[in-house]
């Protein structure tokens, strides 16, 4: 019997963890003790986590530690972690007087400031979004605690938008994302309302009522301010610099991940009918200018999630400074593109280009002189017009193994544009034509010496059990048994989201964000050499773990940062049930601390 430790026990008893620091071993090996699939109702309602990891032959206890939960004020001068502020630095307050405190904690980086102190920059993926800077304290055992936290002022870049995953650049800055850029074409021409998925909530950043119907009321709002890679440089707790890199293109940035050359950045684009992007900076360590490329998938095999030769299509060169004026001058979608509506099977004229992206099947032409604006403000549409592949679905985490020059990318569902035909392929070249697999998969992308991807293939692919998930035959678990609510095989992954590679240990850590695929989301350890998958953590039904990120040696200790979102949603004993707000606050924390690991 493997032991299980519920999350709350782990949190309450942080001190039970006896971390041992040690220097790197030459023969780096790592294995986690696996855990069982939660089977009883009680197990399904708690976090279960492996209790040990064996590093270089020596066993270490493992648990999850909370640094902060949304709403926490760790120090005297702290702001509530996750509270959303408007452009003037005032808290966003709703008509009932309630403050907007986001519980959508996402990626948190561990950084060292120019003052050599320890900091964490944390994402909140809401609209308006926020990033928080937290000063950390580390004890001798490696436990991290928050000392002070405050929101980072984004007024210079007109606020933040759905900050999702992120990474730490080789030069020590935080590279954050803005996911699901609002569709510029949908903006109401009279009011300026975004008409986005989130009901125009960006208005709150400007102290405006999102529901106003007054003409010109939203003139301060501009869709093209959102959907960028955002770099955050920390000097000290008070001095934090924010830059949106317009040169890197505007898409649904899940994540930008910088290669060891300090120039090449891979960008995963999240959503339906999306592309894969590569930015190559002119100067190492400076992301403000460079050339942007979009991938072309030349399929070689349709099995196991598909394999392809990857070609690259240049979208041209740009600098932040060149693009910024287009935004400041309130360039509109209709300034960039001419469009012919494809109603009732109308044909797309020859001098136009038929595309299919997140925003559907369109027929567009770039207006004269607007190529540069199109290449960055509308990078995905422009990439599609240039012939790049925009048939990918739900690109998520990226991580890199420098030893084998392999980039790993998770695609949390293989479907829609990736399938062969259907409405998502209308207007495309049907580059990707693989079988639907709603369980998703992690792909391995082989890079050349210049860090340009050359090929891509499925590495760890989930196994669907039901037809609606892509199984050829219905072979779901027995409806009367404990596993009935899992549509993906429990011995495989379901809907991989954030991933992180542990270099030298050949270990890929895979986090799930699943619905019906796996009833309880899991975190897996996957050995890329032996291909062995080990389940190391399972979250309660309805909650999930995001933002996995590995730090082999952060001030003398190793950590895997992780966020647990909306835990303990399940009722427990008596009515009234404990559906309290506090129960739903997310946890930002880490698995560890580990000894400092070989880098």
């Amino acid at each position: 019997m493997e032991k299980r430790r519920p999350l709350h026990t782990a949190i309450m008893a942080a001190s039970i963890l006896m971390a041992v620091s040690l220097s790197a071993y030459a023969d780096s090996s790592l294995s986690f003790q696996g855990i069982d699939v939660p089977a009883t109702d009680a197990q399904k309602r708690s976090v279960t986590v492996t209790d040990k990891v064996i590093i270089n032959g020596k066993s270490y206890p493992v648990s999850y530690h909370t640094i902060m939960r949304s709403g926490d004020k760790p120090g005297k001068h702290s702001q509530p972690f996750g509270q959303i502020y408007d452009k003037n630095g005032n808290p966003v307050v709703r008509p009932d007087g309630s403050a907007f405190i986001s519980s959508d904690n996402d990626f948190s980086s561990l950084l060292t400031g120019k003052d050599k102190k320890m900091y964490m920059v944390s994402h909140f993926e809401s609209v308006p979004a926020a990033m928080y800077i937290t000063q950390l304290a580390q004890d001798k055992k490696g436990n991290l605690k928050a000392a002070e936290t405050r929101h980072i002022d984004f007024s210079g870049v007109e606020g933040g938008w759905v900050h999702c995953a992120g990474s730490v650049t080789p030069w020590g800055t935080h590279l954050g994302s803005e996911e699901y850029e609002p569709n510029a074409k949908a903006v109401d021409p009279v009011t300026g309302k975004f008409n986005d998925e989130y009901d125009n909530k960006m208005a709150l950043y400007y102290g405006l009522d999102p529901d106003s119907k007054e003409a010109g009321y939203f003139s301060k709002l501009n869709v093209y301010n959102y959907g960028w890679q955002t770099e955050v440089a920390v000097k000290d707790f008070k001095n934090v610099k924010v830059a949106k890199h317009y040169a890197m293109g505007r898409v649904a940035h899940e994540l930008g991940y910088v290669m060891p050359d300090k120039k090449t950045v891979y960008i995963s684009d999240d959503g339906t009918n999306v592309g894969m992007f590569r930015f190559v900076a002119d100067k190492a360590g400076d992301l403000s200018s460079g050339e942007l490329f979009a991938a072309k998938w030349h399929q070689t095999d349709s099995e196991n999630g598909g394999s392809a030769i990857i070609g690259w299509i240049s979208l041209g060169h740009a600098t932040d400074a060149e693009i910024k004026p287009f935004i400041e001058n309130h360039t509109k979608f209709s300034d960039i593109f001419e469009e012919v509506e494809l109603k009732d099977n109308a044909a797309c004229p020859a001098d136009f280009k038929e595309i299919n992206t997140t925003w559907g099947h369109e027929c567009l032409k770039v207006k004269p002189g607007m190529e540069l604006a199109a290449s960055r403000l509308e990078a995905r549409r422009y990439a599609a017009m240039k012939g790049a592949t925009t048939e990918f679905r739900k690109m998520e985490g990226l991580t890199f193994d420098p030893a084998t020059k392999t980039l790993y990318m998770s695609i949390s569902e293989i479907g829609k544009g990736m399938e062969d035909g259907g409405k998502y392929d209308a207007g495309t070249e049907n580059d990707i034509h693989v079988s639907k697999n709603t369980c998703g998969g992690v792909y391995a992308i082989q890079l050349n010496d210049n860090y340009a991807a050359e090929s891509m293939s499925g590495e760890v692919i989930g196994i669907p059990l039901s037809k609606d998930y892509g199984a050829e035959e219905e072979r779901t678990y027995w409806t009367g048994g404990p596993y009935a609510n899992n549509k993906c095989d429990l011995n495989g992954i379901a809907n991989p989201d954030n991933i992180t590679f542990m270099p030298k240990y050949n270990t890929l850590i895979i986090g799930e964000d699943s619905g019906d695929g796996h009833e309880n989301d899991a975190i897996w350890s996957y050995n890329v050499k032996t291909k062995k998958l080990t389940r190391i953590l399972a979250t309660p039904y309805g909650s999930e773990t995001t933002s996995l990120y590995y730090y082999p040696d952060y001030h003398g200790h190793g950590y895997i940062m992780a966020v647990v979102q909306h835990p303990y949603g399940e009722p427990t004993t008596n009515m009234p049930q404990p559906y309290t707000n506090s129960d739903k606050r997310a946890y930002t924390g880490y698995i560890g601390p580990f000894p400092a690991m070989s880098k």
Partner: protein
Amino acid sequence: MNSKKLTASAIALFSCAAAFASGLPLTSKTLINRAAYIPPQCYTVIKDKDGAKHNPCYTCHRDSVEPNYNKDAKLQTDYSFPEYAMTNRWTNLFKDRTGDIADQSDKQILEYVRQDNYKDVHGGLILAEKLKQVPDEWDFNHDGKWRGYVPDCYFNIDGDGFDHDTKGGYTLWRAFAYAPFPGAFWPANGSADDVLIRLWRPFALDENGRFSLQVYKINLAITETLIKRTDTAISSVDEKTFGVDLNADGRLDTADRVAYSWAPRKGLHMSYVGMAKTLLKKGKIHLAAGLFPENTEFLHSVRYLDVDANGVVMGKRMKELRYAKKTDWYTYSALDRLAYAEKKEKHDFPDRLSAFYGDIEHGLGNGQGWTYQGFIEDKDGGLRPQTYEETVYCMGCHSGLGATDDGIVSFNRKYGKEAKNGGWYHWSQKGFKDTPEQMKDYDGKGMRPEYTAYLENNGAGDEFRGNTEIISAFFDADGKLRPEKINALHSDISVLLLPSITRALALDKAYRAVVREQSYIYGRDAVISPPQNVYKEIPAAYR
């Protein structure tokens, strides 16, 4: 034919062993229809073959008002279901019940619907008694205790809408009359309903902790004011007694109304009275427009149709008893965040189905502070708790719907001062007869007679346009509304809402067939013959 018979008897045998149609134990959390939260009405065909459009959807899906952030008006025109739900799994809709109806005589069904399955001959509550020693097949955690709602309403309603127990004491349940929701909820389409509200006990106590009916009535009026966002008439009271400026005229004087005067950011505050006022000050409970205070409860019985000398009336027998309790407070910000999370999930994973927490014993949470639980007839007609799946059926309408106020549909539809006793009465005390049609504004498009507008928009009196009785009565051969019927409707909703006696009994018989099969998970609508205007499969054009 043979194989058909075999299948039927096999099902019957199976039912005996496993209590309901899925074959699973009642305590199971396994869903046979994973999209059970999407009700059958969502599969309505909204465009005829000749291109005519029908919109019964706007009543539920609306450009909602803060703090209902589930603005879902666009669902009026699309079927943006997860792929799994593109197949209509409410297969009972497609069963022809003509045979089942013919098998039951009018006498038999009337005997059945007149039988009380809620109260025994001594006025005791059958279900409450049974739950004292909970049957193991209802007991989710098998600990011998029932931890869900125990029915405690006696339906002994006084002239002021208040319920009394067998000793005459107040149960604090208060019945109210409301404009029945357009479509499926009208008796003409299957069932009679009633709704009662109960505030938490401190709302019925004065500041010294003594029971005060006056305090309770004022607090109910304050709740009504906050939900409707408009003034509510009350019997004249001296505000000094309560220390609350109820009419918001800036001084403590005599008030004959509770004024809607709430905008905390502009310095306009309201307060409950009595003990609730103290609790509000201490932050133990909360107050905001559009939201009910903590521990508010609703009880909603769904009943068969009976017939008396005056025509069709509410039957004694309950088809269902539905219960809701607000167990937690969510601020506007918190509700906004939840709606955002829902939208983001739908955007990220459009094919992912919604999940609901709970089980047969504890009920299901809507994730926004409310718990819902229901009781439904077993195959012999006794009430039993609804299974997890049967309760998921309730959740679609009570979680992310534009039409609700704090997850509740009925209270904003409560009749006000123009009605008998300010709308505080039970339908058994006054039926629909001579009740005027209410005016209602949908999405800021202006006040209109609500049912007339519904008939116009929908071209029928039910979602599936299967109620031919209404169609032939209210529409002429060209599909135009008959002015004389509409005129009659304006002053008397019974002309529309009540079916003929023949139809009423057929609806009862058809539903009883579902009860016998215990096949609620395949649909619990009373279907006489399969409706034509409902998709079995959403067509490709909409996907």
